[in-house]
């Protein structure tokens, strides 16, 4: 079972390494990720949101609904932890 897992992970890693041949070079300023969408945020963040920190303006202003959903994720995870780890009264009585 362990050798099977090793073989599967090596094959998956080899496929991913084959995929990096088409990736842009590391730190290339003309890579598609840095010329297609992000210049609009870099140039307009000061005019539109008056926030010098672009990460903050994108997180809390442009993608505010995403951050709202993120807080929902945190709330759900916290509720799940509390509900799982809560010691119920009947369980405690049954153990005694």
């Amino acid at each position: 079972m362990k050798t099977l897992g090793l073989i599967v992970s090596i094959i998956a890693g080899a496929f991913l390494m084959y995929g990096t041949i088409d990736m842009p070079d590391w730190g290339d300023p003309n890579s598609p990720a840095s010329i297609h969408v992000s210049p609009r945020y870099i140039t307009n963040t000061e005019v539109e949101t008056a926030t010098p920190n672009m990460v903050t303006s994108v997180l809390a202003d442009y993608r505010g609904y995403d951050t709202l959903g993120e807080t929902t994720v945190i709330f759900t995870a916290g509720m799940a932890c509390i509900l799982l780890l809560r010691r119920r009264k009947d369980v405690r009585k049954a153990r005694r």
Partner: protein
Amino acid sequence: MDFIIAKYNYWIYIILMMIGFYAMISKSNLIKKIIGMNIFQTAIILFFVSIAYKKGGATLPILTHADAHGEHAIQVAGYLNPLPHVLMLTAIVVSIATLGVALAIAIMMYRKYHTLEEDEILKAIK
């Protein structure tokens, strides 16, 4: 040689990711599986942050001279790409949430079966 220098960071993250993947598949201890899942998520976060990097004197995506009138022209090549950073901030939050719930479920299984080894739990279920 140029090819290796241009791509080796991706290879490091792929190796890290496969270490986590192997731990998730073939370790039988549940805590080790959770650690493997965290290594996997960390590899993805490092990969996205490395995509954001630009060579040639780019600084952090914080404007150094803030004026709302647009007097200074903003050089796009002078700032790192902010979008992968934002997405990874969200991914860190999700990884913390999954880690918390996974550890809570592991505690529950330990309370019920008094072990964290997967084969012993499967035996106890049967």
